[in-house]
């Protein structure tokens, strides 16, 4: 129990809880989710772009992609479940700031070895 929790509980005990703030926060989150569910076009477009970006690096199972929006305590989160079929060995990043390569990877390449695979844990397809 953090100090904040103790403080809140004490306030609740003495009837000084500012539940108006709670109401405001809940309202903000619920409306965000309402508006998203009312704008399926936007969600679809977002999903399409997301797949496009991820596909530059890994081959994904486009038919099994699942994007959801959920309340998690005090945040509203987008949860994307993207099943990965295989990893592209030569990713084609879009033009942008140069990526910093890991020292370990660079060293491995200098020694003529295959670079270590980054650990990707594909979430089980639902």
């Amino acid at each position, binding site marked *: 129990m953090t100090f904040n929790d103790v403080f809140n509980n004490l306030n609740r005990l*003495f009837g*000084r*809880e*500012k*539940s*108006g*703030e709670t*109401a*405001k926060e*809940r*309202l*903000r989150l*619920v*409306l965000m989710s*309402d508006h998203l569910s*009312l704008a399926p076009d936007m969600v679809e477009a977002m999903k399409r772009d997301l797949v496009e970006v991820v596909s530059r690096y890994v081959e994904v199972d486009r038919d099994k992609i699942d994007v959801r929006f959920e309340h998690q305590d005090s945040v509203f989160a987008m949860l994307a479940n993207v099943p990965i079929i295989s990893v592209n060995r030569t990713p084609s990043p879009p033009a942008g700031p140069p990526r910093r390569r890991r020292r370990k990877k660079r060293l491995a390449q200098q020694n003529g070895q295959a670079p270590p695979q980054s650990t990707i844990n594909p979430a089980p397809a639902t």
Partner: protein
Amino acid sequence: MLPLRQPFDVAHDDAQANAAQTSGAPLTLGRAIVVTSGKGGVGKTTTTANLGVALAKRGAKVALVDADVGLRNLDILMGLESRVRHHVLDVLEEKVELNEALVRDKNFPNLFLLAAAQSREKDEVDTESMRDLIEELREQFDYVLIDCPAGIEMGFTNAVVGAQEAIVVCTPEVSAVRDVDRVVGLLGNAFSPQLIINRVRPHLVHKGKMLSVEDVNSILRLPLLGVIADEPDVIVSTNKGEPLALRTDTATAKAYHTIAARIAGEDVPAPMVEYKETFMDKLGSLLGGRR
């Protein structure tokens, strides 16, 4: 015979005589305004009744239409329940003439009620006929206030079909704000919805225990017509069937009159509610209560 302008008379009447009668409102058609909210129990009917009285008190010809078919209440709030003989469905089904179904108010000869059918269902209302009915009323009245049922189904559709403007009633509650947000989305770009925030308890807002007017409207972002406090006299007026706006001396009554003035186009500030520190609050803060 009811003292109503007949639809057919309009074209033949002297324009000036009519303009004088209608207290400056446009001669052609009156304004049909739907009072809606999505959620039930936020005070749509109370608002309709009081705004009707307040507009009538200003001299305008006002028709109140109860579109809550199956659950009629506007007649009770107006204290006219014993005078209702026919209802909106009787008119829509052409069993009676519109003027036969209109019930005149006890206090204002220029205020009329068209009651909803109590023993019928919302789905029985034909949307096109409802649109025609509201237009017919607009030919005779300066204002046609439509009391919308809760929900967003057929009852809602039928209540808004004839309206050009909307007043949305919201209370400072999460559920009510959410529903208003949805209803405003359904209304789309039409109806230029304006907001009344009802049942505000300034004392609770001050203590941070209730959403404030700013909180509500920072989310809804609608033009604010006014704020009504949650006062015991609202319940008393419901008990008696005498809308608060019949009086002019209480803060709530004044707020309704100011809102009516704003609807009529007067440039007056929106009525707000103020927090007044009571003796108990002072005592509480003296005793070290953190607020």
